[in-house]
């Protein structure tokens, strides 16, 4: 696959992309943080977005998940337009995300944090009736008829199942408040919460930031598992080793633009990518050194 992004993915685009982004742009005053980005993600793919500081990766995530509104371009989920939709709505459409450095609900227990992940799947206690829906929800929450209790119990069981993935790390702490957990555990809770949403599309923003090598390897294993189970994943990561091992494709951003796209090894040896990271000059000598070493 050529590293030149535009023409390559046209075929993927019309053949069942789960996520399809065209010409997405976001400006902040004089700075263009995201510049005319095109992106396609097929079901079951894991695509990583890499790039130096300030390249626009998290802004891109924010645009796709509704936390920010684009100045131009469009986003489609399974063909349906979702540009500019609110985060709440997108959660209901099956998009789950984690945040850079993690955002858990500090005063809620592990169980409660992950249960919030399943919020969009509540049916018995949250009827979709317009207008009086909220009041019905209040009434059902107070009365707790059998169907509501059953749903809550079922979800709690599910949460235990999700937490079991993390071995003994989270289950023994299931009722402890999230603020008391270690940093790595809090990031795990975040992922568990995302899984509770039963997402069609999972966006992970630097899931291993701040973790030591052991924790990183564990997280890498988890993401590989999720991919093997068929989850479609968009990943921002800096630990390029991990990126290479997990990704079907890698997209490189720099200064808001997509500068390369392709399989891991290709991208890593692409002169433009090396330049973006290391700067002009070193790339040449490093490339020369690699050639002599090869």
């Amino acid at each position, binding site marked *: 696959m050529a590293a030149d992004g535009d023409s390559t993915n046209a075929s993927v685009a019309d053949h069942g992309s789960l996520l399809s982004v065209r010409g997405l742009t976001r400006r902040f005053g004089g700075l263009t943080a995201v510049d005319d980005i095109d992106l396609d993600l097929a079901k079951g793919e894991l695509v990583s977005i890499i790039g130096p500081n300030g390249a626009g990766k998290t802004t891109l995530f924010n645009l796709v*998940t509704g*936390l920010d509104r684009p100045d131009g371009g469009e986003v489609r989920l399974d063909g349906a337009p979702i540009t500019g939709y*609110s*985060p*709440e709505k997108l*959660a*209901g459409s099956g998009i*789950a*995300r984690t*945040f850079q450095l993690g*955002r*858990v*609900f*500090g*005063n*809620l227990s592990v169980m*409660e*944090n992950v*249960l*919030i*992940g399943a*919020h*969009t799947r*509540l049916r018995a*206690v*949250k009827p979709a009736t317009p207008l009086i829906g*909220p*009041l019905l*929800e*209040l009434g059902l*929450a*107070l009365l*707790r008829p059998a169907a509501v209790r059953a749903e*809550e119990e079922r979800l709690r069981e599910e949460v235990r199942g999700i937490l079991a993935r993390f071995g003994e790390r989270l289950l023994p702490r299931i009722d402890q*408040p999230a*603020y008391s957990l270690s940093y790595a555990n809090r990031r795990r809770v975040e992922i568990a*919460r995302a899984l509770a*949403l039963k997402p069609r599309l999972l966006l992970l923003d630097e899931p291993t930031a701040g973790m030591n090598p052991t924790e990183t390897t564990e997280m890498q294993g988890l993401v590989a598992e999720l991919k093997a189970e068929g989850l479609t994943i968009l990943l921002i990561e800096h630990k390029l080793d991990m990126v290479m091992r997990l990704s079907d494709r890698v997209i490189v951003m720099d200064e808001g633009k997509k500068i390369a796209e392709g399989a891991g090894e290709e991208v890593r040896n692409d002169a433009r990518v090396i330049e973006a990271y290391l700067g002009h000059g070193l790339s040449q000598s490093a490339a020369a050194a690699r050639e002599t070493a090869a």
Partner: protein
Amino acid sequence: MSSWLDYTINGLILGNVYALVAVGLALIFGVSRLINFAQGSIYLVGAYVGWVAVVALRTPLFITIILVAAIAALVGLIIERFGLRPLQNSVRIAPLLATIGISFVLDQIVMLTFSPNPRALPSQLPDIRFQIGTGTIGPLDILIACIGVTSALLLFVFLRYTKLGWAVRATAQDRDAAMQMGVDVNRVNQTVFGIAAALGGLSGMLVGMYYNQIDTAMSLHATLKGVVAEVVGGAGNVPGAVVGSLLLGLVESYGVAVFGTSYRNLFAFLLLIVVLVFRPNGLFASAKQAPPEPLTGTFIAPSRPVHIPRWALLVAFAAFALLPFLPVSSYVLQTLINAWLFAMLALSLTLVAGTIGQVSLGHAALLAIGAYTSALLSLDLSVPVSMSIVGGGLMSAALGTLLISPSFRLRGHYVSIATLAIGEIISLVILNWESVTHGPIGVSGIPPLSLFGFELVGVTSIYWFSFAVMVLLALLQVRLLGSHIGRSFRAIRDDDVAARAYGLSLNRYKALAFIFGGFAAGVSGGIAAHLYSYINHETFNTQQSILALTIVILGGLGNVAGAIAGSVALVGLPEVFRIAAEYRILIYGIVLLLLVRFRPQGLLGTI
């Protein structure tokens, strides 16, 4: 007969006075991202120091002005150094509560020293008027304009040409970068507070002279007006605050000209709400930008709530339920009835402020809505009292939520400002909507409490009634907290960005919180109405809102048992120790300050 020019001059002069308060608020917000709720209290201090100087010491005007500015500045410095600086690294809610507590304490100290009766504050200036076109101005107008302009010039020179002034501007723009230039941010905060206080104090003195009257109720309105002007001009924007103040002065002046004096404050508060909702950045910024976040960080102090074993709760319940059988005086029972009514308000506020993080400062308005609804339903429509109380609760839930909903899109301190203003608006509407509420006359002859047709005669039956209702509401709230709604509330409080990312609609759940809380508060108000048999627009006031807040902080934000325990403590103990009414509010303010400083999670912990 006043001409339009007169009203314009009046508006500009008034605007000048507001500018002195608003500029102080803007300076403080710019440097520390804090809305100083105590600004109005410093204004009050200025007015009374002015009185002492003019009436007691008979100092010449020039000396009076210097005295007021100096003493007010000193008060400001003390507030910053001892009230706020210790909270620098504390949770987000702490400085907000601290300035509220300080304002309470200051107001009470002034009131205790001088009595709440209004006093005259003569300006010592000759009572002549000069003709200008179709209007007139007097020496006081000129004085106010001079002080306004001089202060503005001095401030300008200070900020533009002195080292410390530069430090202030630099800190307001980028605190970290300023520190990296060697700026001592603490000193900057001190300076700014001193200046803001001096200006605020002068403003109070001038207003007192303008109306030849000062009284302790001036404080709250001064804060609100100052905040209105500051928000209109753009938070932290000093020239904007000046323009906003002049605008506010004119709006008020013309409003009074057209609608009458009783609507004066209504315009100011409505303007505030309109600006906060549509243009939170002020009139001079673009609509797209998000307003500066007033203080970031964790909202409440994370803590493990004190676990009260079930048997202890049952014992407490039994003890209070069986209390009337013991030989206790009816005085004790009456005190506890009062405590149960406050507990219902506290339950409501702890849900709204604690569980979902909307620190509402106008909660007493919900009491008022419930009280008036219940009174009028039973009086005018002959609805049985038990039903009308429920009606009061429902009306408070519905109307209260609707009126507070403009604040849902706001964050941090702005929520508190907005709810305070909305509370004042509701109070003013009650005062002015005479056809329904009977205006200042109030509603009298409200039927006594009765249940299923049986009148509740005697303290004991009323005690049991209010206790039962309180317990019922508390149990419902506990049930709510244990449901998915309870955890949704808490998720929104802890991190509303992450909450939205997982499908929680902020508006929906904030509304539900106010609906539930509004019902509890409305019921409390309704019961009070039938208990007192007479209510007017002053029965449910800001002091009760602040007392409720103190109870809630004492008990622990979001903590149901804490709300009840806190009510018994703060309503009951002052009675037990026979503390005079005037001192109680002072004590509440001090308690709030101590809690915020030393134990923000309260006695029983936040949930």
